């Protein structure tokens, strides 16, 4: 069958995509947990992280050709820049588009429409200000990112894949710790379970919501940087497709469920890649849609069930 030929190759590169999807999906899932709302504009948070990482890293690298330890340093700088940009944009999003509507007890429809508006505004702004062509980052490694480092079951793992995997895993672990162990995480879980009671217990709802957005933004922005490291580079439209797919991943894993978002992202990345092997690359975007519909029909609560309130 089409799949068995180069199964591990596609599996590994699918995982790399999957990690990116997982990071973005976490943003969707966190916000959904506390607001019961899909943050449509999260795809633009991802995109802005890509641009933030791009500018900072291009500036930082200058005309150097980093290798070894300094490569690691530059990747970290890029991740941080992407994350911070994402966090800022996410915060602005919350303050400008969502908070006024929450104050007004606006119907859910209004939130969705406003999010769409912000999404279109942000990506067109990026296009207007930064030009409408894709830009590539100056590579923080001298080793070609596409040369295989090592192989897993015969599938080449190149530097790019490795960087994504390591960064993503580190961030996912970090997020898990934050949600489980910190005050902030407690607040998020409380508001996700029952906002009114949490407020009565002294939790500052506005602050928790803002922090949730920022947290999701940090991850999404960092994902933008990682995405931009690849050959596609960064462009003002880069947010749209990964955004939808990441949302599908979040639903697949169970919306509001952090571990679910991680699982969903990885699973979607792999399945998508294997499908593109079988049906051709031009059909790859359709896979996510069919998976979404399938999940919603057969198991709408997702693979791991919807919950943020309990321990993911």
């Amino acid at each position, binding site marked *: 069958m089409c799949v068995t030929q180069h199964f591990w190759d596609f599996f590994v590169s699918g995982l790399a995509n999957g990690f990116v999807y997982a990071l973005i999906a976490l943003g969707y899932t966190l916000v959904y947990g506390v607001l019961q709302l899909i943050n449509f504009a999260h795809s633009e948070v991802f995109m802005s992280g890509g641009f933030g990482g791009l500018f900072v890293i291009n500036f930082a690298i200058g005309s150097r050709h980093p290798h070894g330890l300094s490569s690691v340093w530059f990747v970290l700088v890029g991740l941080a820049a992407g994350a911070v940009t994402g966090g800022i944009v996410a915060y602005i999003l919350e303050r400008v588009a969502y908070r006024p509507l929450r104050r007004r007890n606006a119907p859910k429809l209004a939130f969705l429409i406003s999010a769409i508006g912000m999404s279109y505004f942000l990506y067109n702004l990026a296009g207007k200000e930064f030009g409408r062509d894709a830009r590539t980052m100056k590579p923080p490694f001298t080793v070609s990112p596409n040369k295989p480092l090592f192989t897993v079951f015969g599938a080449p793992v190149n530097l790019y894949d490795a960087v994504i995997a390591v960064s993503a895993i580190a961030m996912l672990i970090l997020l898990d710790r934050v949600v489980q162990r910190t005050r902030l995480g407690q607040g998020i879980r409380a508001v996700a379970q029952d906002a009114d009671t949490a407020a009565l217990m002294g939790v500052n709802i506005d602050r928790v919501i803002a922090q949730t957005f920022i947290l999701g933004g940090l991850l999404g922005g960092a994902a933008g940087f990682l995405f931009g490291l690849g050959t596609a580079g960064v462009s003002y439209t880069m947010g749209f497709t990964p955004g939808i797919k990441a949302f599908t991943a979040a639903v697949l894993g169970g919306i509001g469920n952090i571990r679910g978002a991680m699982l969903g992202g990885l699973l979607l990345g792999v399945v998508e890649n294997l499908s593109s092997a079988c049906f051709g690359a031009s059909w790859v975007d359709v896979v996510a849609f069919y998976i979404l519909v399938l999940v919603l029909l057969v198991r*709408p609560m997702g693979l791991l069930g919807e919950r943020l309130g309990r321990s993911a």
Partner: protein
Amino acid sequence: MTLRRVWAWATSLRGRQLWVTLAGALVVDVMTGPSGSLNDPTAGFAGSLLSRRVGIFLLIGFAFWLLVTSRERLAAWSRSWTAAVRPSRWLPSRWYRLAAYGVLLAVAIVLPLVLSPYWQEVAVDQIGVYVLLALGLNVVVGLAGLLDLGYIAFYAIGAYSCAYWTDSLPIHPPFVLNPFATIPFAIAAAMLAGVILGAPTLRLRGDYLAIVTLGFGEIITIYATNLQSVTGGSPGNSRPIPHFSINLFGLHYRWGIDNMPYYYLLLAFVVMVIVFFHNLENSRVGRAWTAIREDEVAAAASGVNTFRYKLLAFAIGASTSGFAGVLFASKIQTITPLSFLLQQSILILVLVIFGGMGSIPGAIVGAAIIQWFPNGLKTYVRKEDLFLYLGALLVVMMIYRPQGLIPSRRRARELALAESGLVEADALTTASRDV
């Protein structure tokens, strides 16, 4: 001590409104300012914010704030908002309303005759067709409260149906039809697609419905592009779709590339659709939709089959879109997947929201005004920036005027009641809240 007073004022309501207004002024400055480029990403920002422009915009913002927040004016202004929301204001007498529609119709008939050919084309391609689309989406979003982000997909299905049945696609139909005759087939195809899409997804939460419909819109474009042997793919159909023509009972007329005949045909269809939808809205169907929007559980308890009515709204919206697709296809003669992008679905959504969700006159006026903008302000606004403005418009509308330009009476009431916490205003809230 004075620092504290300054801070106290800055965080007061008026102070906050000043920040918001000034920030808004800066945003408008950047939006309307120069653009950056690939090699010079800061050019746009520098050009807008580090030049004389910023002073002008800040000044305008300040003046706006002064005007709007001075006490007496604020009171009068908010009174005018609430007055606009009160149902009695809107032409209580049926005859006044009919007269208003009559005047509008007269204008619509006469005005295009005095316009330039450029504007005549706009009237057909951009305003006319989009009024029809807005009316259809108005039923889905405005009356039933369902967010459909893939609306353009049904338009595409209608257009491709027309192309197929007039033998303009690579695959041949069993018999060839006149474009007029393809209308029922196109409507049927679009309605079928609407039902197939709606049946599994309308039971889902509103947010999910939005995403699924978005995805549907996307994959229709993908299928249209990839199945080149069926749809003609990206280059489009090789044989042009014939224009409309009538050959019945001694009546012979052929529409050509001239805009005006198409305009009048479109106008006739729009009037027909308005009459149908108006009747629908004031029937048990319209009331059932309002009930579902207001309180789905209570609606079900009152015997309303909520799923069936939602599906009905969806199907009607899809059919209208498909119908518009035929008109579009037959006029433009060549259709490609590029004619049916996501952002058109969003555009139609903007038209409906801006005009007033659930309001027929709102949909018409909203479509006309918004579609005028990129053409009327062509010299001041770049075409690529259009959605920059539309996006901002959506956000601003949702915060300051969610009922739209010409609110439907029911909707305006609902929003006013929702704001005072008495009611949840649409079908997107989870249904099983403390029963």
